[in-house]
C-alpha cells in the first residue's frame, strides 16, 4: 500500500540531509552569536572574557541596594464610578483597522484597552475577529504615531504646531480656495461621519474624493455594466454550498473577509444532509496559491490572463453546450461565447476539458446556493472588466443573484475608493486646478505607481495638509501633518452595509496631543464660521438621561422646578464636538426614522451597550435579484479576440501582484504582531517575496533567496525568490502591502513595495499579467519561515480523506484506532487513572474548518503577552508563538493539497514535559492542565526536548523588554546593528507599548520556558464567578483567546468531564489525536479533514493500518516497547544533544 505523504517544506519533500540533521536538535541553532560571533562579525567574546564579566556582574549585584526599590500607590483623585482597580470593563465599539466595520468588544483595565474581541451581536464578524483586528492594540499604543501637529513644509521643515494655528491656517486656506479645494479620504461610512463630511464640504465648497490603498473600482464597475448600479454586493457565504473563485481571495483579502470567513466556516463544517455526510465545495482557479486556494477542495493553476477564458468556458458549457438557464439562446450570448468552448479553452489554458465541464456541472447542481467570485489583484489584468462580466453572468445564470448575492438591498459600503477618481484628481492637480488638498486615511504617495506622477502633481497644489496616524510617505510631502486618533480613542460610527449601524466609542483618552479627524473638521469649520457647529445649551445643562430629569435638581429652588411657572431659560449656543454631533445625527437620522418605542436616551444607551443597531430584519435575506443585462457580456471587445494564448517566452515569467492576508493593503504596517504571524501560504515572516514554482526555478536555475530584478513600465524593484508549491509554472507573484518607507521603526523597510509595479491604463489599474524577463541580480537573501523549524519525519500528523470515502466509511482517513493501556499514574489505591474530580479542560479542533488565517495566533499574542522576537530569532528556531498554524502539503508538488493544523500545547494527560522537569516547574493539575510555573523554571529545557508536539517556547533573551515591538530582538543587535536591519539608535521598550500588556498574565523573563496555558487566567476568572454565584461553570463559560476569535469556529473548548459539553459533542468518528501512539494522552482532539473531491490514487487506502489493540491487556512496560517498532524511527525521545 502506498502511504500518503505529507510534507511541510521542499527540503522535507526531497529528504534533504538538513532535515535529518535537525532531528536531534531541539532548537534550530545554537547560541552562536555570543561565543561564536566572529562569523557574524559581531562581538568577539571568548569564554574567559565571559567569565570575567560574569564575576564582575555578580560582584555588582552583591554590592547593590539591600532592599527593594520604593514603589508608589497612586489612587484616583476622583474614582470613576465604573472603574474598580483590577476589574475589567468591556466597551462595544467598531474596529478601525480597515473599512469592513467589524464589531469590537474592547476589554479595558483601569481605563486602558488591553484586548479586543469580536462583538457577538455584530452581524458582520459575529463575535470573531481577524488577525489585523486582534493586532489593533499595537497600532493604538504605537510609539511612532504622529503625536502633535507638525509643519512639514514639503519635507523641508519639522516644527511643532499648536492646534489653534492649525485651525486658523486650514480655515484660511479653505475659505480662500473654496471650490478649488479637495478633501481626499479613504473609505468612510457611518451616518454621522458621512453627514459631517457633507456638512464640511458644503461649507467650503470643497470636493470630496475617495481613494483607498486598494480600490474596488473594477468590481463595482462590473456590477454597473451588468446591473446598472455601481455597488459592491454583499455576499452570503453562509448560504453558498459551492464557491468558485477566479483569482479572487475572499478569505485572505476580501472586502469583508471576516464576514466571508464566518460564512465559509458555516458551510465547511461536515454535516448530515439526507442521511449522508455533506460539506461545501470550493474550487479555485488561480495563478498562485492564495489563502482561499489553501482551503480549496480543488485548485486549478491558471495564468492571470487566462482566468477570463476559464470563466467564459464554464459559462459556455452551461449556456451554449448544455442550454441551461434562461440565457440559453438569448440574443448575442451564444455568439459572444463562441470562442470559449471548453475544448478551445482547454487547449489554450491547459485546464483539462473534463475538469472544466465537471466544475460547470457541479455549479449547475448547486445553482442558487453557490457564489462565483472573480477579481482580486491576480484577476486585475487588461481583461478585468471581461472577467467581472463573466462572473456576474455566471451568477445570473446560476440564479445566485438574489439567493447568495445581495446587490439591491443591504449592499456593502466597505470599499468606496475609486482609482478613476484619484487619477482624475491627479490630472486636475497637474493642471493647477486644485489649490488646497486635505488628505486623510489614504496614502497615494505609497500606493500610486510612479508613472502617475502624484508627487509632481502635488507640487502644483498650493497647500497640502495630511491628517493621519503616522508621518507617512504622503505626510512628508505635505505642508502640515496633523495627527488623527486611533479608533479606540475617538467617537465615530460606521455603516458597513446599508442599514447596519455600528458605533465607535472611545475606550481611552487620547494618548498624545491628538484630536480626532472629525473634531478637526468641526473645529476648522467653526474657526472659519463661528456660527457653525453650535448647539443650543440651556443652563443648567440638560440631563443625559430622562430618569435624572424626573428627580428634582439638587440644590435648585424646588418651587420653581415644581411649578413650571418660570419661563424656560433662553438657550445659549455652545460649541459642539463630534460626540455631540454624533448623538444629534443618530437622534434625527436613525432614532427618529425607525419609530422606536422608547426614548432616545434608552435607545442611545442600548446602542452604546450593544455597539450595533441592526433594525432591518429583511437584511437576513439577500435583496431581490437584479436583472442581468446581457449587453454587459456581449459588448465586451475582449471576447472577440481572446488573449488566452498570451505567450510567455523563455526566460520570462508572468507577474501577478497579490494581497498579503496578514498585512493587507499595508496601511497599518508598524505592527510586529502581524509581521511575526507567518504568511498563511508560504509561512514566511517579516518579508514579501517572489513566489515561483519549484519546477520553474529548477528550469531557470533559481534558488530560494536569489534576488530578481523586476521591471514593469519603468518601475523597478528587487525581491527575493521563494519556491512555492502550487504556483503556475509560467507565473511569479509578489505581495503588495510591504516596503513602507515611513510608517515607523517596525514597518520601515520590511519587504519591498510592489504597488509601483501596477500599471495604469486609462482609468483602471492592471496588477497582473505582465510578462517580465527573469533577471537575477543577487542571491543569498534570508527568507525565514518557522515552518522549517520542526519536521514530520514521516509521522502521521494530519488525517484527511475525501467526502466520497467518508460517506462510505465514517472512519475514513482516521482508521488508526488506539487502545492506550498504560498509565503513568500510580495511585495509592492501586488505580492508574489521574482523578479529574471537577472539570477537565479539553479542546476539539476541526481541521475542516480551520482556514489558517492566523487570527488565533495574534489573539494569543495579545492575550498572553507573547513577545515579538523578530526575523533573526525565528531563523534560529526561537519563535515564541504559543499557538501556531502548521501548514502541510500533500500530493503533487506542482499543485498540492494543503492542510492547516493549529498546534498548541496539548495539555497531555501523560505529559512528557512533566516527568523530566528537575524543579517541578511544569506540573499536572486536577483539571487536566499542564501548568507552567515561571518562577520555578530554571531553564533546563528538558521539557521542551521531551515535548513531542514542539509547542514549548524558551525565552533566550529578555524578550519582554522589547515587547511587543521589535523586529530585531537580538540583545546584541544593540551593539552590532548590522545583524539587524541597520537600525542603530532604536529606542528600546518605548512607552506607551507596555500599556498593551495583559495585567492578568505574567510577563516572562529570560531563561524561562513558556507555553500555551489554555488561557488559565480565563479559567481562574470563571472559577471566581462560579464561586460567587454558587453554580458550576457552564459550558462555554470559558473561552480561550484562540477559540474566541476563530472566524470559522474551528476551535471548541470546554469541560471534557461533561458528556453534553460542546467539546465532547464535537468529537465524532473524525476525532483523532496527534501522535497518539506515544500515549501522551493529549487533551486536544483534531477532526479529520474531509475534502470534497474525488480521491487521488494515493489516497485509496487498501485497509486500515495494523492496530495494537490486542496488546491492550498487557499493562507492563513491554506493551509500550512493542509500539515502537511499528512506528520505526518514531520513538526517538533522546535527550538533548550538547553540540556546543
Amino acid at each position, binding site marked *: 500500500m502506498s502511504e500518503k505523504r505529507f510534507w511541510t517544506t521542499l527540503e522535507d519533500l526531497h529528504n534533504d540531509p538538513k532535515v535529518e540533521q535537525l532531528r536531534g536538535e531541539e532548537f534550530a541553532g545554537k547560541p552562536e552569536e555570543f561565543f561564536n560571533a566572529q562569523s557574524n562579525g559581531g562581538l568577539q567574546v571568548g569564554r574567559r572574557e565571559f567569565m570575567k564579566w560574569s564575576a564582575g556582574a555578580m*560582584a555588582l549585584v552583591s554590592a547593590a541596594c539591600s532592599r527593594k526599590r*520604593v514603589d508608589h500607590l*497612586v489612587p*484616583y*483623585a476622583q474614582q470613576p464610578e465604573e472603574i474598580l482597580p483590577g476589574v475589567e470593563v468591556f466597551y462595544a465599539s467598531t474596529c478601525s483597522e480597515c473599512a469592513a466595520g467589524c464589531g469590537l468588544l474592547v476589554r479595558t483595565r483601569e481605563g486602558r484597552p488591553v484586548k479586543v474581541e469580536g462583538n457577538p451581536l455584530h452581524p458582520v464578524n459575529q463575535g470573531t475577529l481577524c488577525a489585523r483586528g486582534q493586532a489593533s492594540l499595537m497600532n493604538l499604543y504605537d510609539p511612532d504615531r504622529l503625536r502633535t501637529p507638525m509643519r512639514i513644509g514639503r519635507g523641508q521643515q519639522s516644527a511643532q504646531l499648536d492646534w489653534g494655528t492649525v485651525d486658523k491656517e486650514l480655515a484660511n486656506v479653505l475659505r480662500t480656495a473654496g471650490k478649488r479645494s479637495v478633501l481626499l479620504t479613504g473609505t468612510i461610512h457611518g451616518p454621522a461621519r458621512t453627514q459631517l463630511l457633507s456638512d464640511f464640504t458644503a461649507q467650503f465648497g470643497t470636493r470630496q474624493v475617495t481613494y483607498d490603498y486598494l480600490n474596488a473600482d473594477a468590481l463595482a464597475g462590473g456590477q454597473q455594466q451588468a446591473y446598472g448600479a455601481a455597488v459592491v454586493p454583499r455576499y452570503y457565504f453562509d448560504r453558498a454550498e459551492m464557491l468558485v473563485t477566479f483569482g479572487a481571495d475572499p478569505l485572505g483579502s476580501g472586502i469583508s473577509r471576516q464576514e466571508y470567513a464566518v460564512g465559509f466556516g458555516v458551510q465547511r463544517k461536515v454535516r448530515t444532509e439526507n442521511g449522508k455526510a455533506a460539506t461545501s465545495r470550493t474550487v479555485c482557479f488561480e495563478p498562485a496559491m492564495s489563502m482561499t486556494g489553501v482551503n480549496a477542495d480543488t485548485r486549478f493553476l491558471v495564468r492571470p490572463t487566462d482566468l477570463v477564458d476559464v470563466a467564459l468556458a464554464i459559462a459556455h458549457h452551461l449556456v451554449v453546450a448544455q442550454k441551461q438557464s434562461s440565457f440559453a439562446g438569448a440574443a448575442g450570448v451564444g455568439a459572444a461565447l463562441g470562442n470559449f468552448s471548453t475544448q478551445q479553452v482547454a487547449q489554450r489554458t491547459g485546464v483539462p476539458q473534463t475538469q472544466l465541464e465537471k466544475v460547470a456541472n457541479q455549479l449547475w447542481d448547486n445553482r442558487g446556493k453557490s457564489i462565483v467570485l472573480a477579481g482580486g489583484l491576480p484577476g486585475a489584468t487588461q481583461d478585468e472588466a471581461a472577467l467581472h462580466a463573466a462572473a456576474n453572468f455566471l451568477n445570473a445564470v446560476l440564479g445566485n443573484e438574489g439567493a447568495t448575492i445581495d446587490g439591491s438591498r443591504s449592499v456593502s459600503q466597505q470599499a468606496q475608493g475609486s482609482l478613476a477618481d484619484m487619477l482624475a484628481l491627479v490630472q486636475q492637480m497637474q493642471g493647477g486646478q486644485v489649490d488646497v488638498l486635505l488628505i486623510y486615511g489614504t496614502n497615494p504617495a505609497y500606493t500610486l505607481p510612479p508613472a502617475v506622477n502624484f508627487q509632481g502633481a502635488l507640487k502644483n497644489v498650493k497647500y497640502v495638509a495630511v491628517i493621519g496616524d503616522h508621518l507617512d510617505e504622503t505626510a512628508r510631502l505635505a505642508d502640515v501633518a496633523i495627527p488623527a486618533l486611533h479608533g479606540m480613542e475617538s467617537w465615530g460610527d460606521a455603516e458597513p452595509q446599508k442599514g447596519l449601524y455600528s458605533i465607535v466609542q472611545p475606550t481611552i483618552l487620547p494618548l498624545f496631543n491628538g484630536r480626532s479627524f472629525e473634531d478637526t473638521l468641526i473645529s476648522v469649520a467653526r474657526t472659519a464660521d463661528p456660527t457653525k457647529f453650535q448647539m443650543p445649551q440651556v443652563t443648567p445643562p440638560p440631563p443625559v438621561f430622562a430618569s435624572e430629569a424626573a428627580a428634582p435638581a439638587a440644590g435648585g429652588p424646588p418651587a420653581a422646578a415644581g411649578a413650571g411657572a418660570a419661563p424656560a431659560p433662553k438657550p445659549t449656543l455652545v460649541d459642539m464636538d463630534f460626540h455631540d454631533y454624533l448623538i444629534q445625527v443618530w437622534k434625527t437620522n436613525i432614532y427618529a426614522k425607525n419609530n422606536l418605542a422608547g426614548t432616545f436616551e434608552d435607545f442611545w444607551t442600548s446602542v452604546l451597550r450593544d455597539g450595533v443597531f441592526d433594525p432591518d430584519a429583511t437584511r437576513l435575506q439577500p435583496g431581490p435579484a437584479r436583472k442581468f443585462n446581457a449587453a454587459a457580456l456581449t459588448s465586451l471587445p475582449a471576447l472577440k479576440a481572446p488573449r488566452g494564448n498570451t505567450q510567455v517566452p523563455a526566460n520570462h515569467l508572468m507577474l501577478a501582484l497579490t494581497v498579503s492576508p496578514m498585512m493587507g493593503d499595508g496601511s497599518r504596517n508598524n505592527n510586529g504582531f502581524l509581521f511575526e504571524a507567518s504568511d498563511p501560504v508560504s509561512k514566511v515572516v517579516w518579508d514579501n517575496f517572489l513566489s515561483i514554482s519549484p519546477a520553474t526555478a529548477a528550469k531557470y536555475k533559481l534558488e530560494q533567496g536569489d534576488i530578481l530584478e523586476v521591471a514593469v513600465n519603468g518601475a523597478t524593484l528587487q525581491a527575493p525568490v521563494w519556491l512555492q508549491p502550487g504556483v503556475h509554472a509560467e507565473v511569479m507573484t509578489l505581495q503588495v502591502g510591504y516596503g513602507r518607507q515611513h510608517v515607523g521603526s517596525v514597518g520601515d523597510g520590511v519587504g519591498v513595495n510592489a504597488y509601483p509595479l501596477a500599471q495604469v491604463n486609462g482609468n483602471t489599474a492592471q496588477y497582473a499579467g505582465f510578462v517580465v524577463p527573469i533577471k537575477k541580480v543577487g542571491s543569498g537573501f534570508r527568507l525565514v519561515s518557522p515552518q522549517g523549524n520542526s519536521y514530520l519525519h514521516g509521522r502521521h500528523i494530519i488525517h484527511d480523506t475525501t467526502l466520497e470515502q467518508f460517506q462510505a466509511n465514517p472512519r475514513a482517513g482516521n482508521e488508526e484506532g488506539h487502545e492506550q493501556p498504560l498509565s503513568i499514574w500510580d495511585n495509592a489505591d492501586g488505580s492508574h487513572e489521574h482523578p479529574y474530580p471537577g472539570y477537565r479542560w479539553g479542546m476539539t479542533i476541526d481541521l475542516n474548518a480551520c482556514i489558517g488565517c492566523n487570527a488565533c495566533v495574534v489573539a494569543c499574542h495579545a492575550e498572553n503577552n507573547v513577545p515579538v522576537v523578530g526575523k533573526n530569532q525565528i531563523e534560529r528556531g526561537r519563535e515564541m508563538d504559543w499557538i501556531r498554524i502548521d501548514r502541510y502539503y500533500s500530493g503533487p508538488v506542482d499543485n498540492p493539497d494543503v492542510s492547516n493544523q493549529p498546534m498548541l500545547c496539548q495539555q497531555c494527560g501523560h505529559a512528557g514535559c512533566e516527568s523530566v522537569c528537575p524543579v517541578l516547574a511544569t506540573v499536572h493539575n486536577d483539571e487536566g492542565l499542564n501548568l507552567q510555573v515561571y*518562577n520555578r523554571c530554571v531553564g533546563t529545557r528538558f521539557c521542551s526536548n521531551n515535548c513531542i508536539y514542539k509547542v514549548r517556547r524558551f525565552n533566550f533573551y529578555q524578550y519582554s523588554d522589547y515587547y511587543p515591538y521589535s523586529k530585531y530582538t537580538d540583545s546584541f543587535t544593540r551593539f552590532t546593528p548590522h545583524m539587524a536591519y541597520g537600525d542603530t539608535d532604536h529606542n528600546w521598550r518605548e512607552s506607551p507599548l507596555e500599556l498593551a500588556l495583559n495585567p492578568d498574565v505574567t510577563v516572562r523573563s529570560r531563561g524561562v520556558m513558556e507555553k500555551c496555558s489554555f488561557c488559565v487566567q480565563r479559567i481562574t476568572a470563571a*472559577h471566581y464567578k462560579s464561586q460567587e454565584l454558587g453554580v*458550576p461553570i457552564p459550558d462555554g463559560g470559558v473561552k480561550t483567546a484562540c477559540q474566541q476569535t476563530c472566524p470559522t469556529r474551528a476551535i471548541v473548548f470546554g469541560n471534557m468531564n461533561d458528556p453534553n459539553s460542546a467539546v465532547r459533542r464535537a468529537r465524532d468518528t473524525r476525532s483523532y489525536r496527534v501522535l497518539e501512539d506515544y500515549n501522551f494522552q493529549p487533551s486536544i482532539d483534531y477532526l479529520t479533514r474531509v475534502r470534497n473531491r474525488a480521491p487521488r490514487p494515493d489516497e485509496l487506502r487498501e485497509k486500515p493500518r495494523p492496530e495494537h489493540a490486542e496488546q491492550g491487556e498487557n499493562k507492563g512496560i513491554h506493551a509500550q516497547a512493542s509500539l515502537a517498532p511499528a512506528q520505526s524511527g518514531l520513538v526517538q525521545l533522546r535527550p538533548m544533544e550538547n553540540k556546543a
Partner: protein
Amino acid sequence: MIFSRLKERWRLVTLVALLIVLGIWKVAMAASNVGYSPAQPIPFSHKLHAGVNHIPCQYCHAGVDRDTESPIPPLNVCMGCHSVVDANKPVIQKIAAAYKAGKPIQWVRVYDLPQFVKFAHRWHIAAGVACQTCHGPVQDMNQIRQYREFVMGECIACHRSQTYLPAPADKVHRNLATYHGHEVNAKTECSTCHN
C-alpha cells in the same frame, strides 16, 4: 607551572563561590520586607481611623471584595468625611487641595508582590479571612508597617491548614478537599496564584 595554575583556578572558584553566596544572601534579605514602614506623604493614622474610631476597613477600602487589588481609597472617599470633619487642619487642607486640583496622592507602597503572583483579595474576603491575618493589627498602627513576610510558604501554610470554603455549592472544592485522603482546603495548585 601546573601547580600554580591549579592554585589560581582554586582561588577563582573560591572567589566566585563566595560572591554567589553573598549575592544570594543579599537577594534573600532584600526579599524580606518585614517591618518596612516608610513615611507617607500624608501622615494617615490607621490607629485613629480603624482603631479609635472603629471605622470598618471596607468603609474606605471599598471594593476589596470585588477587586483583585485592594483599592487604596481615592481622594473623594477622604473628602466624604473630611470636607466637614477637621476641615481646618493643615493636613486635611492639603488633601482638599489635591482633590480640587485632581492630583492624586502618591502613597509609598508597603506590601508588594512580584508580578508573577496573581493574588486576589476577593476570594479571601469572601472566605472571611480577616484583613489582620496578613496585614497585622493595622488598627494599632499609626504608620502602616509590613507585618509579616510575604513569601509563598506563608500562603501555602494557610491554604493547607485553614478551612475556609466559600460557596457551599462548590462541588469542585469539596471534592478537592477530600482528594488523596488528606485535607486540602483552599486550592494549592500552582495556577491558583501563578499563570
